[in-house]
């Protein structure tokens, strides 16, 4: 009845088995969802290549609009600040991904080792709090600290005899501040996935290790981390896919769009937002498509590299 042998990963052409039917049936609702909500609207990407004009309903408008090739993409690259924008977008994201992953993994391992589970829960809940706040609220908090005449920091400085600093017009502090804010906001959230992974581990591995006389550090190095490898790599690949997207709230709302901070806060999403007033539907679509293509390439690239090193961990 069953035509396959369990555990074989050969390149032999497999016959369609009953298993496959059952699995397909199981995945069917989700497949339908993807069809209706992701693939059906996808025809909209061609707007990036057209001069969009209204002509009847949306479908008719899209079909009858004139093709303009790559014209809508020009504005992304014509500006002298494109390099700054790319450097900021990619640069910040690289730091976020590397630092964020490192901090989340380390903290997750640490939390799982605490004596008191109750304390562990308390810490984790506390570290999750920043995630609940939107960037707009965080922007107000930062303003509450750094506002020139009403801020907590300047009030403290002046009351102890120092001079007030015009924080929002001095760019040297901001890269560090922005990185801190991003990591801070994602602290608890990032930990969840890794914590859930650690929690799901089979304790017999650890029991066997202890019997063999392994120390805690050895257990972490040889059991915990390798077993988390898959998840860490996948999360890494997924984050890499967003390397051309930036957090609009962080780079636009928190710094109050200050001119002095331009060099360190100008990222691709800020640029797109600012040009919205002067741009057309086609141009907006073009920038989204650009980000999508770049994201796709980076994910596939990262995936290919991972596949070379460790095929099991790859996403695709």
């Amino acid at each position: 009845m069953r035509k396959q042998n369990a555990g074989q990963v050969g390149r032999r052409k497999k016959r369609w088995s009953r298993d496959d039917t059952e699995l397909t049936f199981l995945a069917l609702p989700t497949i339908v969802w993807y069809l209706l909500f992701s693939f059906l609207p996808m025809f909209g990407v061609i707007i990036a290549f057209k001069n969009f004009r209204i002509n009847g309903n949306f479908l008719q408008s899209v079909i009858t609009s004139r093709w303009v090739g790559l014209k809508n993409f020009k504005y992304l690259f014509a500006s002298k600040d494109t390099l700054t924008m790319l450097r900021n977008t990619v640069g910040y994201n690289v730091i976020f991904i590397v630092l964020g992953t490192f901090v989340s993994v380390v903290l997750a391992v640490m939390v799982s080792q605490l004596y008191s589970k109750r304390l562990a829960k308390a810490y984790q809940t506390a570290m999750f709090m920043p995630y609940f706040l939107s960037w707009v609220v965080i922007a107000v908090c930062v303003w509450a600290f750094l506002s020139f005449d009403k801020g907590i920091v300047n009030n403290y400085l002046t009351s102890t005899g120092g001079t007030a600093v015009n924080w929002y017009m001095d760019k040297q502090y901001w890269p560090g501040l922005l990185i801190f804010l991003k990591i801070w906001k994602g602290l608890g959230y990032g930990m969840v996935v890794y914590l859930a992974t650690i929690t799901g581990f089979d304790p017999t591995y650890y029991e066997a290790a202890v019997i063999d006389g392994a120390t805690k550090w050895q257990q972490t190095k040889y059991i915990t981390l390798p077993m988390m490898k898959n998840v860490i790599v996948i999360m890494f690949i997924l984050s890499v896919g967003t390397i051309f997207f930036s957090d609009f709230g962080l780079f636009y709302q928190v710094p109050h769009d200050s001119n002095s901070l331009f060099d360190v806060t100008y990222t691709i999403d800020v640029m797109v937002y600012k040009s919205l007033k002067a741009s057309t539907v086609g141009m907006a679509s073009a920038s989204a498509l650009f980000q999508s293509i770049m994201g796709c390439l980076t994910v596939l690239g990262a995936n290919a590299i991972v596949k070379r090193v460790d095929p099991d961990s790859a996403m695709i």
Partner: protein
Amino acid sequence: MKKCRFLSILCTAALLMSMAVLPGCQSNQGSNSAAQGSGAQKEAPTLTWWLIGSGTPANLQSALAKINDYTSKKINVKLNIKIAAYGDWDNKMNQIVNSGEKFDIMFTNNTKYSKQVDLGAFADLTDLVKSDAPSLYKAIPEEVWKGATINGKIYAVPTYKDSAIAQYWAFDDKYVKKYNIDVANTKTFDALDKAFTKIKQGEGKSCYPLKLMQTDAFLGMLNNYDDLTVGFQPIGVRIDDKNHKVVSVLEQSDTMAQLKMLHKWYQQGIINPDAPTTTDAGKGHIFLSAQGFPGAEASWQVNEGVAKYDTVQAAEPIYTNSAIQGSLNAISANSDHKTEALKLLQLVNTDHKLRDMLAYGEEGKDFQYVKPNVVKRLSDSWQLGSYAEGTFFNMSTLSDAPADQWDQIKKQNAKAISSACLGFTPDVSKISTELANCQAVWDKYRFELMTGASDPTQKVPQIVKELKSAGMDTIISELQSQLDGQLKAD
């Protein structure tokens, strides 16, 4: 039992999803209930009208019923009002227009009007309004119609209100008396300089006579230059230039003088140091620059918490396209009832009773008449933007506002001078890339320049250089050729 559990879960999921999908299979068109072919409309068609406001009032349906009673008797038309909240309006209207969703009338303004016309979203009303709504055409002055014209055609009914910009400067009376400021003669930046310096010397370090904020900065500073509805401040035409020369605004001598003065004030502490970054205006301004009319200071006083403001009209009122396009009502190119929609707009702008119902809500519940032309508000729930619906001049005044408020505005409008470029709205589709890039460059510098934080003698050349490499010259020449082509033909 176990199989049942799984099956039941799957069935529920499938059921829920199909519940969502099936109704849609009938291609829900939504609004237009009377789209059944042409011919005698014994039944009144229902028009969908998108307006702006704080939100949907709780009694919208009952108020609408009363309105529809009135309109179906007068012009055989029914209304279905949809309201977009202030914060959502920009995004939501984009969705509606771009997705081709059906509607009949839509409120729009200068930030969107020309782009929407460019997209082909609105119907051409030029001939229709003269033939089918002649009293509407007469009710609105020629200049105001001109301001709503794009490429010689009218695509929306402009709202005739305080359509001419009149810039007023106001001083807190307390300081006027303390430092003997001659408000009536303070109409230039130099005069302001004297006044501000006096106040600053007297009040000391933590007092900022000119408190500015990031956006807007010194409101009205560039009023002498018509931005041609492009909304890009560094490019404009002097309102009194009969030759319509498109110039680089920042480099003009009067602009430079103003910028230098602002910088001087910033350095002297007359302007607050965080002006380029603060988004909250705060209250209790010693000095205000705002658009208004005689008597407007009453509401400024309440808003700022200041006992009395002494005001002076800083410049003559001006009609520009941007100002007139502050409120327009357009008819969809896809609408099946263009004539009926025009007739409705005509009724709104000429009929007193309908206008009041739209502005104030349900009579007896939201408002009541104190005099034939004065109403008193009874409840807070009807919060539609009345400036968006139609003209002010057939509307009753509120009981706590000056009774002659509308007359004052009308008088002010009558004195207005028209910008030399009135009637010209450019087609920016050929220069959209340059505009987007120039806007990005301008955004890099504009807050600090316009609040005086940067030194204009250094910054302006730098800005202009970057703008030129972003394509400013292309924009200027394109606008100039369109201007020459259109206005010479007049």
